[in-house]
């Protein structure tokens, strides 16, 4: 692919590539300086968000998890700009903490691993809300958080690698479907 890249790049104005990378660097510079200061969530809530994201898409033998993928920072950023998300996610984490306090006597982050699993197992499925109406707000919250975590994970470098996407490149010709039995 290297040869193809060189031949096509000649046709593309250099300043275009430079510009794209300069805006990217500027956007990233904010977040790279020192520890991350959450824009919307309190430090406690952000810690909870990090744990939830990592629990939704954890590191495993094949790749890092949602935390390494920057999903919590991405969710914090878009939530800081979206009042609907502020209500649903900010409120959702408070719902989770107060529900944990009622059930286990401490907020989610301080619950035991077993307690955390128990509450997540109850809000991770719609059918549970059908059985127990007191869970429905938690199920709604978790459903949105799961979607946004999938955004954050699968648009990251490690998430894209995990999926095996190959492309976004310069080809001189497109080879089409590789020979695969049955296709």
């Amino acid at each position, binding site marked *: 692919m290297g040869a193809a890249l060189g031949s096509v790049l000649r046709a593309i104005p250099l300043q275009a590539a430079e510009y794209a990378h300069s805006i990217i660097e500027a956007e990233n510079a904010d977040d790279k300086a020192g520890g991350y200061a959450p824009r919307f969530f309190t430090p406690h809530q952000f810690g909870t968000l990090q744990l939830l994201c990592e629990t939704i*898409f*954890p590191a495993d033998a094949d790749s890092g998890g949602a935390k390494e993928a920057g999903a919590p920072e991405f969710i914090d950023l*878009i939530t800081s700009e979206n009042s609907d998300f502020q209500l649903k996610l900010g409120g959702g984490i408070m719902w989770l903490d107060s529900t944990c306090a009622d059930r286990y006597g401490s907020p989610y982050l301080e619950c035991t691993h077993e307690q955390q699993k128990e509450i997540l197992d109850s809000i991770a*499925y719609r059918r549970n809300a059908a059985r127990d109406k007191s869970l429905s707000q938690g199920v709604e919250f978790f459903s949105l958080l799961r*979607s946004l975590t999938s955004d954050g994970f699968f648009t990251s470098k490690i998430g*894209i690698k995990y999926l095996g996407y190959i492309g976004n490149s310069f*080809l*001189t010709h497109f080879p089409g*479907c590789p020979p695969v039995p049955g296709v």
Partner: protein
Amino acid sequence: MQQSNPRRKIFDVCVIGSGAGGGTAAKVLTEGGLSVVMLEAGPRLHPETDFKEHVWPYELAHRGAGVGARARFQLNDEFMAPNGFWDIEGEPYTTAPGSTFRWFRSRIEGGRTNHWGRIALRFGEADFRAHSRDGMGHDWPITYDQLAPFYDKVESYIGVFGSKDNIPNAPDGVFLPPPRPRCTETIIKKACDHLNITCIPSRMAILTKPLNGRPACHYCAQCGRGCISASNFSSSQVMIPVAQATGRFTLIANAMAREIVVGKDGKAEAVSYIDKSTRSENRVYAKAFVVAASACETARLLLNSRSPSFPDGVANSSGVVGRYLTDSVGSDLAGYFPQLEKMPAHNHDGVGGMHMYMPWWRFGKKNDFLRGYHIEFGGGRDMPGVGGFDGVCAENEGYGVGLKQKCRSSYGTFIGFSGRGEMIPNDKSYCELDPNVIDQWGIPVLRFHWQWGENEIRMAEDMQDTFRSIVEAAGGTVRGGTRRHSHAGNISTGGEIIHEVGTVRMGNDPKTSALNKNCQAHDVKNLFVADAAPFVSNPDKNPTLSIMALSWRTSEYLLDQAKKGEL
């Protein structure tokens, strides 16, 4: 008096709008030797800074979701070339009680050609005389044979790939070679062969070979982001630069046309426009005017150009301006295909859009509805993006390594199908000036009336049946529509397919049409329309290629008239 101002610059032609129609007119007219001034309601386009081609989602803090993740819920994502919006702040439109209509408008040099799907289909012979064939709608005042040479010119200039397939009423064109099919397309083609549904290489305005100084496609699948190498067609990169190179072209950006001013001799003499950057009123003078602001915006400008001789709007003595508004019939469905789970990782990108499609394959047969539709389809191992895993997450629920693995195994296994069909114009679908609402520039806005006919509803149902049969024949399972339609049932919301046409239609009878067969206003000889407003019908074939062919024909007629001194 303004008329006696000796310093007033008078251009040969003023073109309003810089999209497919306006760009084509600017090219043909300036190359023909005329001076052209173009009004564009938005800013100039700067591809080298405006396009985000080849940027990975993780290189942007918002990952493509945009500020507040708003782009997650719109047609635009953060990567899209500057193109347009469903809602423009300060420039509303309204809908009549009981009607729903969505209007996607551009305010940028190049207009909607910056984002369009590049699908470039010729209308067929039968499309120009649909009324003669089935008694519905109206015939065009021109035939396919009259427009065909201009399709040739457009395709030869802009570059369209495809293959010669001799399909009834889906004419072949001047084609570059088509790209090879992706795996998803190979699977669906096989199923279509089994079902006797025609499935052929698509016809797209993307270069598979270098043409007229533009390099060939480099297969990154990102046409919608804008192409830095201009290997796909946009008016901003392919039409306007050549007009500019003639030295006879002036583009006035951020100029919102408000009114066409008619002189004492009954001819148009100027356009009043708002300079958006200063909020000031200006005029530009010309000997002839080509309106190409997009079908509904063009109708709005004519309706707003009221004078004692034209109390209902310029060129509207027939009262048809705003009438006969149509959009394509749209319906979508997706399928899951388990055989794609076994596909090894490979580069699936290709061009920005489909490599194959299904032209209307039941032409001339007895169907439950009149006219026809074609099918577009796509999916597979595309670049991951925001929202791409919503469906898998909602279906599987839960969390953890299991969900993560499920997302990976189902990645690239979905194929979405979109039908695009012909709507027959009806009396209940039209636009008019809202009597009570103006935009921030003081210009009265459009109010839309919309109703699908029974024929369209039946056609959309047929699309769904066809999609299901294709999904099943290909060994897949149906997974719901690919897009959320706000209209009840299986049919898209009016305007949503962004194929609005017909609002200033052409015809031989000045009582029932606003323009003659050369897209020249019956009432005002130096006024022309060059977007989709003149269309008499809205065949299933996406309108952009026909907008350009018709604009090219209109522009050559205008050139000829200018040479004869008729303007």
